[in-house]
């Protein structure tokens, strides 16, 4: 198992599989966010607030309050760390494998998204840190109240600068996913020339859906489509 990880193919598979787990989280996160558009339930609690509460009380009997959520967070963080560590090892190898660069290099086959994987990944990493401080811990958000998800969103996305930052981050995520999704299937040998076009188109389509899904929340709030809660 360890000798598999030591090989370049092993590392490539690890990046692909950890990337796939992170992708599944991203899909789940995006789908969960859509609760913002559901309005208030019959108890007068906003659906997104109830959802936040649900995530903490899910499997409470077995893991305690917030226990399962922390388990998931820990797992995600470990997966992310493995993804980053392996990519960094491969980057070192890349620099070693081509010590002298070409004077001229005319790249034709690689896509923009493939060439910006490292840059985009770095932007996403910075965004993850900011996003956690912004809407999970609330450290960098003025007036943040723990548990008031819907109100916090309104506090956050009044600022055009914040909305703009989220747009940039989501664009980076979309490009990263476009190459990452196709790459995952190619690495595991699941692609094939007959269905490659379909896979590439599917990867691009899914990335667009995810980006639009995520951005719908800050944009709907900024442009007043979602009405602020009564206490704001």
């Amino acid at each position: 198992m360890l000798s598999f990880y030591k090989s370049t193919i092993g590392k490539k598979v690890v990046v692909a599989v950890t990337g796939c787990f992170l992708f599944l989280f991203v899909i789940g996160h995006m789908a969960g966010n859509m609760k913002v558009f559901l309005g208030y339930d019959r108890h007068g609690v906003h659906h997104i607030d109830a959802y936040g509460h649900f995530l903490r009380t899910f499997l409470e009997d077995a893991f305690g309050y917030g226990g399962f959520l922390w388990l998931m967070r820990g797992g995600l963080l470990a997966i992310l760390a493995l993804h980053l560590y392996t990519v960094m090892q491969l980057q070192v190898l890349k620099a070693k494998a081509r010590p002298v660069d070409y004077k001229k290099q005319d790249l034709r086959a690689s896509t923009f998204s493939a060439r910006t994987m490292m840059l985009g990944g770095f932007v996403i990493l910075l965004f993850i840190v900011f996003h956690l401080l912004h809407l999970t811990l609330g450290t960098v958000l003025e007036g943040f109240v723990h548990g008031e998800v819907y109100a916090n969103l309104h506090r956050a996305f009044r600022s055009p600068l914040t909305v703009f930052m989220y747009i940039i981050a989501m664009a980076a995520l979309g490009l990263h996913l476009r190459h990452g999704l196709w790459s995952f299937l190619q690495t595991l040998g699941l692609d094939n020339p007959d269905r490659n076009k379909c896979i590439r188109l599917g990867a691009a389509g899914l990335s667009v859906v995810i980006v639009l899904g995520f951005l719908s929340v800050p944009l709907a709030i900024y442009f007043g489509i979602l009405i602020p809660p009564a206490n704001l």
Partner: protein
Amino acid sequence: MRLTLYVWRQPSADAQGDFVKYDLSDVSPDMSFLEMLDVLNANLEELGKEPIVFESDCREGICGTCSMVINGRAHGPESKTTVCQLHMRSFQDGETIYIEPWRARAFPVVKDLAVDRSAFDRIIQAGGYISVRTGSAPDANEMPIPKVESDLSMDAAACIGCGACVAACPNGSAMLFTSAKISHLGLVPQGQPERTKRVKKMVEQMDDELFGSCTNYGECQDACPKGISISFIGRMNKDYMKAKLIEVEEPRKEVESQ
């Protein structure tokens, strides 16, 4: 045709190299790229200068010896073409052309445009063979092979081992070459006995030669003069995963009588 050439000159493996500018006139558009370099070398020899070292052999696009990066493209601007089959009509009168050797740590420059590609030979030696019965030749078609598989195997076997995949890959990865060599044997019945051992040995040798890893840019299949598909890389990955994680070979144990 009149051309301005910037050619990489490096006297030896350890020496510092640099681009040298050459102006060449009266180039016929019907010359091959190598013939153009032959003319340049003849001119240099007449002037008592050291001719440019470059490799070539068959000059009909099947041996994989010629190797140079022309204006940032391995084997030049035309697709599915080796340098010897590239003609000067693919360039414009008055064009500036940069000529560089394959760039990879695993392919050290020997002199000028010639690089040492014996890393590929060592990958082949590691497992690119099959066990065959010696003695009289077997009957033709003795072993039935499905058409689809034999065609796919031949697609992989088209690899001439020129190294353009490594030269074109921004990561300096040799996965297209290695996967083609693993696949053309692994797809037919003759290659089955050593299939597991082969993929392990060849991939490990590839890593030992310090080629980079693959990030699915797809530049290799674009540069490949034989149009070999990156789907063979996926196939190799699958074979390697199977060999390392599922069909792990146990060391042979003595079978005791009961």
